[in-house]
């Protein structure tokens, strides 16, 4: 594999769908049927290579693969597919992937029909000028209703579904038809071979053996191993060490021309030099105009990440930089906390995104973390007319200086079977929502709500899933800021304020949240030798309190016939366990308390 492929034999596409509709499984079948990976090396959802992806059974990172397909017209085509995540927190991966390709396979689970993310993805695909091929999946299941779902697609989305391909990604039924549809219905890329090199930096990641790996899509010109290239935004220049395509393992290739997708390494030391969306060109003969780049994603949830062992702060910095390279939607800046020492205030696209990053740092970099209460960004309008962004409730200034506070609002779209509609409306009302719309699409209710983001970030999605037994789907967009009666609630444990637990709440909901928080903490903090008051307060006023009674007994009843060794080991282990907690005054608080305390049960 060394020759460049001409444009008309290339098709580039993303596979998009609502979560769990079978994108990754479809990718498996495409890889398998084209013989890209030997049969014995196949495994389920093989592109979901990360541990967390495999454990949770979801895709988190978009992944691209190059496959070769001998079509019925007798020609062999090079297909570059990008499998994307379905969860709303990773929508940025999808929109970015779409910039690098010309078409999308829109997968819809034919037992479920159109869901919130199906809609969101279609709109993005239309925005990106994509040709869309609808694919109805899971037709092997008895509950499959392809005809009904086709109607839904036409009614709700408004695209022609008459030629939707009916498949089972599980059994392989209909996969040859998908391949033909890709070749026949998706457009070939465009580009000029003789023009100066213009390539899009689609993604990059850190590989422990190879260092920084950069994924590119060539728009114009040709890139070759050994080329001296330049990143247009950062101005950094590099000599290409290695040029490859992903099958999905890296296979070296001599050159990549217009329309092609591949990766390179170039001894890139400065992780910061690779910015997704940047344009890559030749150092000596640059293209004149850079690509527009990606719309930056705006983090909506912030929290502090601190190493449990403060000596690991520099390791944490390194880990965060490397992860940020792989994930442009994740932002960070250094933070110091009275109780927790040095750490980072990090921004995420949602709570799942936060959990994933935290898990990855803990596992891939082996650093134990304390995560502080997540928060959204508030706008503080000061009496002197200045506007300040508040990322951390602990930094809330004295109210006498603040004129008013604005909070971010979202437009949430929820699709839900009629049976659960009542519960969903109740949940939205409780969370200070304002109903904007309620319509019926293909037998289900579609409710649109204006909601404060801070009521959604912690546990809204979990709650929604549990009250609807998983039948509701959810999508949201930021709409803007609005003033409301927001106050800072602090939490005092044993009369000491714990800054990592303070939060912004609506005044009307403060008592309720305060009570819930104190009750939760009472369960989460282990009993100590003394009794511990737990209080929630606004300013100096206590609005809720609980008391954790003292532990009265902690003694081993019998002492084994002189076996002091065993007993000593046990005590030492307990002592080490205690070190994993954080001390606030005399109280040890386990790390999981910082997030768990915020989740509400109702």
């Amino acid at each position, binding site marked *: 594999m060394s020759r460049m492929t001409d444009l008309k034999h290339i098709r580039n596409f993303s596979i998009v769908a609502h979560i769990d509709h079978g994108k990754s499984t479809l990718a498996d079948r495409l890889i398998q049927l084209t013989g890209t990976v030997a049969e014995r090396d196949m495994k389920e959802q093989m592109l979901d290579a990360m541990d967390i992806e495999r454990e949770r059974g979801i895709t988190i990172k978009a992944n691209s693969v190059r496959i070769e397909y001998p079509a019925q017209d007798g020609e062999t085509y090079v297909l570059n597919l990008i499998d994307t995540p379905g969860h709303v927190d990773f929508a940025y991966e999808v929109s970015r992937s779409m910039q690098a390709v010309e078409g999308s396979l829109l997968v819809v689970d034919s037992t479920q029909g159109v869901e919130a993310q199906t809609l969101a993805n279609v709109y993005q695909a239309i925005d990106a000028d994509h040709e869309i091929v609808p694919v109805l999946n899971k037709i092997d299941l008895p509950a499959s209703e392809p005809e009904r779902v086709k109607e839904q697609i036409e009614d709700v989305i408004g695209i022609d579904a008459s030629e939707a391909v009916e498949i089972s990604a599980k059994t392989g039924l209909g996969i040859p038809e998908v391949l033909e549809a890709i070749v026949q219905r998706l457009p070939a890329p465009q580009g000029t071979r003789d023009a100066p090199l213009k390539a899009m930096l689609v993604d990059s990641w850190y590989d422990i053996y190879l260092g920084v790996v950069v994924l590119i899509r060539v728009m114009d010109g040709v890139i070759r191993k050994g080329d001296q290239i330049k990143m247009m935004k950062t101005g950094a220049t590099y000599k290409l060490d290695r040029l490859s395509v992903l099958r999905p393992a890296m296979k070296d290739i001599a050159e990549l021309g217009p329309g092609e997708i591949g990766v390179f390494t170039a001894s890139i030391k400065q992780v910061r030099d690779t910015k997704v969306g940047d344009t890559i060109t030749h150092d000596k003969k640059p293209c004149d105009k850079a690509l527009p780049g990606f719309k930056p994603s705006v983090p909506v949830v912030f929290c502090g990440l601190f190493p449990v062992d403060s000596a690991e702060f520099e390791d944490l910095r390194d880990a965060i930089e490397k992860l940020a390279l792989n994930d442009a939607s994740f932002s960070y800046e250094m933070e110091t906390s009275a109780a927790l020492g040095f750490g980072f205030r990090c921004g995420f696209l949602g709570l799942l995104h936060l959990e994933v990053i935290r898990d990855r740092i803990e596992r891939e970099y082996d650093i134990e973390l304390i995560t502080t209460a997540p928060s959204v960004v508030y706008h503080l309008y000061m009496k002197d007319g200045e506007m300040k962004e508040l990322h951390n409730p602990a930094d809330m200034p004295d109210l006498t200086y603040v004129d008013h506070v604005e909070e971010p609002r979202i437009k949430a779209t929820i699709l839900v079977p009629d049976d659960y509609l009542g519960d969903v409306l109740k949940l939205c009302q409780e969370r200070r929502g304002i109903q904007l719309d309620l319509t019926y699409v293909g037998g289900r209710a579609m409710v649109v709500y204006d909601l404060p983001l801070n009521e959604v970030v912690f546990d809204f999605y979990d709650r929604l899933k549990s009250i609807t037994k998983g039948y509701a789907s959810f999508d949201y967009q930021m709409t803007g800021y609005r003033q409301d009666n927001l106050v800072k609630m602090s939490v005092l444990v044993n009369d000491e304020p714990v800054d990592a637990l303070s939060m912004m709440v609506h005044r009307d909901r403060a008592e309720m949240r305060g009570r819930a928080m104190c009750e939760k903490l009472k369960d989460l903090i282990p009993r100590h030798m003394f009794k511990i008051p737990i209080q929630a307060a606004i300013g100096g006023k206590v609005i809720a309190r609980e008391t954790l*009674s003292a532990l009265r007994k*902690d003694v081993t009843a019998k002492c084994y*016939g*002189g076996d002091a060794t065993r*007993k000593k080991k046990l005590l030492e282990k307990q002592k080490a366990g205690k070190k994993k907690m954080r001390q606030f005054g005399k109280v040890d608080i386990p790390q999981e308390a910082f997030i768990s305390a915020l989740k509400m049960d109702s």
Partner: protein
Amino acid sequence: MKADWHAGGFGLYIHWPFCAAKCPYCDFNSHVSAQIDQAAWREAYLREIARLGRETEGRVLSSVYFGGGTPSLMEPETVAAILGEIGQYWPRANDIEITLEANPSSVEARRFAGYAEAGVNRVSLGVQALRDDDLKALGRLHDVPQARAALDVAKAHFGRVSFDLIYARQHQTLDDWRGELSEALDMAADHLSLYQLTIEPGTAFGDRYAVGKLRGLPDDDLGADMYELTQEMTRNAGFEAYEVSNHAMNGSVSRHNLVYWRYGDYAGIGPGAHGRLTIEGQKRATVATAAPGLWLRDVGGDGAESRSALSGPEQAAEYLMMGLRINEGISVSRYRALAGFGLDEGKVGALCDDGLLEFADDRVRTTQRGRMMLNAVIRELMV
């Protein structure tokens, strides 16, 4: 200067690893075996005694303890032979204490005369409960009348008799325990061991507990109430709580156990037995091969026991752990001499302020509250 162990004395522990049945809460090194070759076991003990005797010959022996397992399954001749061999190596203290742990079945009670003749002068009976249903739940083979009868036989043959009870059992209320304990105090001679049921991992109870199937155990608060009640009732009956779970009248404390708690030297003989022996100025931890069959096979060579030297700070930590269990507490200067550094004064001070420790005349001891929180106190003080 005398070696440190003299502060605690010197005792011998003989481990008999067999029982008639395995109790579901028990994680001692005990096994049920159909055939026990008593002659072979006797031989093995004698060889071990000779080996250890040569190393520590001449020390004054303050106690011998036959523990288990169920040593009351030993033939009295075996006990006699062991005690005879012991006499070959160590001079006995005038008030030597020779205890044998016995299960209160009628079969075993029949051997009591023989043990007394062999030289045993104290028995500790595993009564465990004074309620038949609970004895069943604890997997015991005896019932309450048998236990009472065995206790009477024991009192007739031995100068000193103790028995064990396990409380904080499933479905036991505070009032249940009050009633049961008062019956026990009426029966008691001069010593009682009263243990709160501990759920040990790896036992049948531990397995049931792990899957949530061991119901009706008292919560922390009820456990604490039961402990406090136990202290109060025993004190009122004239028993001193000289250790976390041990109560003695008129100073009839278990001298053998005091060797552990005062961090003296003790030799452990038998499968899985632990010892602490100071040899050539160095205190060592010893532990014997745990599996009875392997131990029996390896005895005689030096294959049945492994030894490791204990550093000063390790010895000090063990002293702290053991010493704070008893009323007399620990000597601060002895701790310093062992560790090479003193106890953390700030922490001792804070624990005194919190009402958990008392510090006077070179000794640190726990208060009643401190005793109830002993593990937390030790964790605080451990370095």
